[in-house]
């Protein structure tokens, strides 16, 4: 079993929809939870990170962490065609230099 599980999709939604992306994990030592966005043929870029549990909001993006369920989510409101990309969740423990990534979910937002 992988430490981080992420549904690869693909996920296709109409413009303006609310998108929900999710990851589950098995390592209870994870404390940092990240979402990276990767456009086709590009390197990933950090979208948001959260320390421990709770919610974090940045514009149209909201990250949620539920450590009791070992479950994290990324919500995208009012999705735009420019949001079409692969979204990778990533996690690391307090003392780690090693982030563990999910396989990524490919999202397409149709105009």
């Amino acid at each position, binding site marked *: 079993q992988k430490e*981080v599980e*992420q549904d*690869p999709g693909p996920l296709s939604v109409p413009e303006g929809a609310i998108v929900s992306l999710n990851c589950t994990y098995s390592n209870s030592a994870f404390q*940092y939870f*990240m979402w990276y966005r990767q456009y086709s*043929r*590009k*390197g*990933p*870029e*950090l979208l948001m*990170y959260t320390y421990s549990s709770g919610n974090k909001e940045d514009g149209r993006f909201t990250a949620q962490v539920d450590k009791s369920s070992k479950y994290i989510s990324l919500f995208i409101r009012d999705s735009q065609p420019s949001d079409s990309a692969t979204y*990778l969740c*990533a996690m*690391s423990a307090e003392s*780690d*230099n*090693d*982030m*563990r*990534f*999910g*396989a*990524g979910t490919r999202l397409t937002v149709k105009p």
Partner: protein
Amino acid sequence: DAGITQSPRHKVTETGTPVTLRCHQTENHRYMYWYRQDPGHGLRLIHYSYGVKDTDKGEVSDGYSVSRSKTEDFLLTLESATSSQTSVYFCAISEGLAVWEQFFGPGTRLTVL
């Protein structure tokens, strides 16, 4: 791509040949990383460096070696390439202990025939 370049961007090679990939940064960041990205596996850490001549292994280090003789350059070497090393390789950098905030290069697409 945050002042990170990778070379070459594409390479096709044959099984058993040595291959070296280069990562160059202009940000003067202390930490540098090499990842590989494969379908169904996401990104997996190969090796990382926390300073000149200071390196350590990651999750999938077998078959790979690294060197860092200057702050700005981090080399990844496949001593004898195998078909299982066909992948997209990404270099990343980070400042200080903020391991979660890594900046990635554009990637190198390697095919081993």
